[in-house]
């Protein structure tokens, strides 16, 4: 049994290597083919919880940790916000080089005021972004974020939402460097970010 398991692990390892080099190869080839998937990019024009218009250009020059959610979400979203707040605390002085961004997938309920009431409660550094339904839709497209309304008769307005729950880490050049799936412990996220930020600012 142990030998079989070793073999499985080995095969998995080879699989990951092959996949990894394929991804690298795809990234380094300069001419994108028609069937190659478009990369995740930050490309948006939205309104901050302070009422100011924000685009991805506002994030140039700083690391950004971006995630999507909605404020009527009682479980996943506050947990993610709390986790990111913990990462910011963990980062210590490096936190000044990181902008955490919460983008709502529920523009109907999450207006500027709703975000202003909610997002900064988790950490003063957070930026909440909202927009028109069309702006949110096009933003989600560039991040390849999926979201949908789910019927929930007891919830305010009768719906809840399902949405992509991962965290996106962009470098100061606005290039995606890492995705963290929901539930990644803040300590792990911190350990991943610290050396990147240190190498970048040295």
């Amino acid at each position, binding site marked *: 049994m142990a030998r079989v398991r070793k073999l499985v692990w080995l095969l998995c390892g080879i699989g990951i290597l092959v996949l990894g080099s394929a991804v690298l190869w795809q990234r380094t080839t300069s001419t994108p083919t028609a069937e190659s998937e478009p990369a995740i990019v930050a490309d948006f024009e939205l309104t901050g919880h302070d009422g100011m218009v924000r685009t991805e250009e506002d994030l140039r020059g700083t690391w950004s940790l971006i995630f999507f959610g909605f*404020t*009527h979400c*009682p*479980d*996943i979203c*506050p*947990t993610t*916000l*709390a*986790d990111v*707040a*913990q990462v910011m605390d963990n980062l210590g002085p490096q936190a000044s080089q990181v902008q955490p961004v919460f983008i709502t997938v529920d523009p109907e309920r999450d207006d500027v005021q709703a975000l202003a*009431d*909610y997002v900064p*409660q*988790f*950490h003063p550094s957070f930026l909440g972004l909202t927009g028109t339904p069309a702006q949110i839709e096009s933003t989600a497209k560039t991040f390849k974020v*999926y979201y*949908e309304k*789910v019927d929930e008769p*007891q*919830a*305010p307005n009768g719906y*809840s*939402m*399902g*949405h*992509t*729950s*991962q965290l996106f880490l962009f470098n100061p050049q606005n290039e995606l460097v890492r*995705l963290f*799936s*929901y*539930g990644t412990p803040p300590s792990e996220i911190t350990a991943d970010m610290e050396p990147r930020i240190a190498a970048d600012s040295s």
Partner: protein
Amino acid sequence: MKNLVPFAAVAAFLMPAPLFAGSDDITVENAWSRASIGTSRPGAAYMTIHNTGEDAASLTGLSTDLAAMAEIHRSTTNEENVTSMAPAGTIDIPAGETVALEPGGLHAMLMQLQRPMIEGESFSLTLEFSDGEEIELEVPIRGIAARGPQD
């Protein structure tokens, strides 16, 4: 001393039998919840439920005066990293097993809050089981950015 015997007998008679049947077998630990901003958004509560008895238990419902509608929900994340939640229905707790209500999984969903959830306060929550047993517990309210029962 001899007065105690009739008292206990009367007490046992007055209490509806199923209410306390096996209630010693279910213990709840580490209950916590997060503060809310006002009452317009639903809240969630978390806890660990142990069934130390010999029989399986089924958690069928919740009630609290804090929320007009309280039910057990489950958040699930699929392979595409899309998370959504839905009512979880009845939660079976086999004999000797533990069920955790924790962020990203099962949670006590508190809809239509009747008052804001204020950090430092607590609220009472009743767990309803299929055999009619009920367990009432106090759930402490932690800060809005709390990540667990200790925050």
